[in-house]
Each structure stands twice: as structure tokens, then as C-alpha cells.
């Protein structure tokens, strides 16, 4: 029986058995871990607050046959403003689902952990949720081993400028090579490049212009679906919030 004390972000939490909860955690050194928190649904449980998705805690875990058991948790970051905001929380949920689906059990993933923690911090700081969403999508793809080429045409290697198209699994195609693909405007192309290239603390300072938001609405999803082998279930809800007029959805 292995005992583990680790920093972790809660990706997912659901009811388990009569009064327990099953949590999916992402840790810096031990990757994704599933653990049972016994009696955590009882009002007197001290674990409840630390099991909320999109929170960071130091967990003490004991390994079992299939699952770990949570024996203690000390809250580190609650991200209160994030939890009180509709669209930022939907973005966080979507990115956490992608991480949950893409990581194997106990595969160390310090980059994914760092990216998620950084994005949650920025979402909590009320940075533009849609810019952070696109950054999360582009960077998660890269961490899965599928970095997109957003500067040069993936077919002819010529420079890609406004009017370029987007080939889901690879990156951009210049205006000559894109064929029937919908063209991306200069703002959309710049937003994609910022999503991939800006240092993490700089992300989401500038909101994506409305037209570029519409253009980017559907380009990254298919690339992720292809890599994950399925569509994240939380995308439908996120797209509903991002629909017409959704730019005002940050605070209800």
C-alpha cells in the first residue's frame, strides 16, 4: 500500500456509492489519478471543499487495488471568482475534460498540469475567457504531440496571411492552397498565433474581435476530436454559451 502526498487539481468529481465521491485528479508528478473520498457527501466531511472541480489542494492518498483513497486534503487555491462566473467556468470545465480524456492513469504530465493551473488562474483573474479557451485548445493539442503549424502553409511552406485556411489536423494553409476551406481573417489568424505563442501570463489580456471569434468557433474542435477519438461532452454547453451575444456571458 503506497502513501502519496501531492499537489493536485480536481478535474472531475461525482457521487460514488452511498455517501462517497470519486474524484479525478491531475498531479504534476503522478499524472492523472482516480481516488475515492469516503463519506465525502456527508455534511460533516472536511473534504468537501477540496473535492470541488477546478480547485487546487494538497492531497494525501493511499493506493488501493484499482483506485486511490483520499485520506486528507488541504485546500490551496479555490478560484472563487472563476466559480462565480458562467462562461469562464464552462471554459474551465471543457479544458479539464480534455485533460481528463487525453491523459492515461499515472502518466506524469507536468506540462498539462502547469498549463491547466495557469489557465485556471487567468480565468479566475477575469481575463478574456474565449482567448484562454483557444489557447487551451491549441496548447493541449501540442502537449498531445500534435502541435499546429500556424505560421507557414502546411502544404507549400509559403507564408500564411489573411485569407489562409485551417486544416484541422495540421495547421494553416495559405490562400492559394486552402481550396474550398473557409478563409480566416487577419484577426482570427493573429488570435490563433497568440493562443499558441504568447507566454502563458500574457494570455487573454486582449479580447478576440467578434468576427474572429465567429471564424475560430469551429476550427479547433475537429482537430481535438480527431486526437481524442471523441467529442468532449461539455463542448455542446460551451458552444451554447458562446453563441450569438455570448460575449456578455462572463457575469450573469
Amino acid at each position, binding site marked *: 500500500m503506497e502513501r502519496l502526498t501531492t499537489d493536485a487539481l480536481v478535474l472531475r468529481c461525482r457521487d460514488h456509492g452511498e455517501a462517497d465521491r470519486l474524484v479525478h485528479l491531475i498531479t504534476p508528478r503522478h499524472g492523472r489519478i482516480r481516488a475515492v473520498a469516503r463519506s465525502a457527501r456527508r455534511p*460533516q466531511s472536511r*473534504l*468537501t471543499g*477540496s473535492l470541488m472541480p477546478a480547485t487546487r489542494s494538497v492531497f494525501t492518498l493511499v493506493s488501493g487495488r484499482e483506485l486511490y483513497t483520499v485520506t486528507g486534503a488541504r485546500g490551496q487555491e479555490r478560484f472563487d471568482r472563476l466559480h462565480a462566473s*458562467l462562461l469562464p*467556468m*464552462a471554459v474551465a470545465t*471543457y479544458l479539464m*475534460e480534455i485533460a481528463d480524456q487525453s491523459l492515461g492513469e499515472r502518466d506524469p504530465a507536468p506540462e498539462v498540469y502547469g498549463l491547466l493551473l495557469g489557465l485556471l488562474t487567468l480565468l479566475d483573474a477575469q481575463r478574456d475567457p474565449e482567448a484562454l479557451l483557444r489557447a487551451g485548445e491549441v496548447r493541449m493539442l501540442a502537449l498531445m504531440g500534435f502541435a499546429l503549424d500556424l505560421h507557414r502553409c502546411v502544404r507549400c511552406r509559403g507564408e500564411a496571411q489573411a485569407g489562409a485556411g485551417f486544416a484541422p489536423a495540421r495547421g494553416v494553409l495559405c490562400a492559394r492552397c486552402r481550396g474550398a476551406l473557409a478563409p480566416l481573417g487577419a484577426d482570427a489568424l493573429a488570435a490563433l498565433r497568440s493562443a499558441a505563442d504568447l507566454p502563458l501570463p500574457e494570455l487573454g489580456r486582449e479580447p478576440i474581435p467578434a468576427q474572429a471569434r465567429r471564424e475560430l468557433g469551429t476550427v479547433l474542435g475537429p482537430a481535438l476530436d480527431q486526437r481524442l477519438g471523441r467529442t468532449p461532452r461539455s463542448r455542446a454547453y460551451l458552444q451554447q454559451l458562446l453563441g450569438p451575444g455570448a460575449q456578455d456571458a462572463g457575469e450573469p
Partner: protein
Amino acid sequence: MALPDPIARLMEELARLPGIGPKSAQRLAYHLLKQDPESVRRLATAMVEARRQSRFCSVCQDLTDQDPCRICRSPGRDASVILVVEDPKDVQAVERTGEYRGLYHVLHGAIAPMDGVGPESLRIAELGQRLLQGGVKELILATDPDVEGDATALYLARLYQPAGVRVTRIARGLPVGGDLDYADESTLVKALEGRQEI
């Protein structure tokens, strides 16, 4: 040794119930088999009748045997206030307090995007219809204080606040009779935020 078919089938059905695993199903099945046939028949009849006679109230969506339900029909209730809950069990919990005199609306769930449960899966359209009929001054959002419950409350607030309805959220904090020392940090923070003058 293989179980006789009727007993195996009974255990299989019992094990489908929430919170009942194979071991508990076995215990319940053997308990039933020890009872006299009349008490087992009463239990079976109660289950079948409860299912047959129960439907959703066309107004509040709570489970009822009469439509509209007793609470929605009661002239003594304040129809200008609607308390929104996730589950019919929550209506019973609030009713046990004896303090609330308004009406209810049961959503039958909460927004849970990772489980594929969006607003369209809940009884939100029916709540909108009630508000359109007018006369409602306050919506009290009493969804669970977890991520799904909070998302649902935020969604409803965004939907109905612009319509001029007062939208409030039930308070959260320390349980009565609880011990401060045993409260987790999130609960303590919420309790501090919701402090009141005495």
C-alpha cells in the same frame, strides 16, 4: 451452486437500485424471502401503485398524484415567490422546515456539462412559462452548493434577471450545531462572506 432463477432475478433487480450493490441486494432478497407472503405483497403493491399514480405536476414539475399538486393548488401559499430546486427530495427537505410559504419549481437535475447534461435537459422552459404568466416577484435558487448547482444558478440568474425578477441564492455556511474547527476552508470562507449583524 446456482441460485434458483426467481431469486437470482430478484437480486438482479434489487441491485439496479441506487446505492445497492450485489451484497446488499443479496441481503435484501433473503430478508424478503423470510417475510410472510402478505407483507411482501403489500410492498410490491405499494411500489407498483406509487409508480402508477405518480406523475409530474404540470406547474412545478414535482412528483404528485394530483395535477396540479397540493402545494400549487393551496390558496395559502405565496405565488409571488418560487423556490427552484434540483430534485423532488429537495422540496420535501424545505417543507420539513415549516418556514417557507411560497411555491416550488423542480428542475430534475443540474447542468453537468461533462455528463452531457445541458440546460435543455432540465425543466427550465417550464419555469420560463411560469414567469411569462406574470405575478412572480422573486426566484430563490436553491440548487446544490456544488459546481453543477452553481452553474445552474448562474445560468438561471443570467436568463431571468433581465426580466426584472428578483433572483436570490440561498446562503451557505456552517451547519447548525457544527464545530468551527471541523469546517473546511471553502465553507468557512462562504460563512464569513455571508455574515450578518446580530
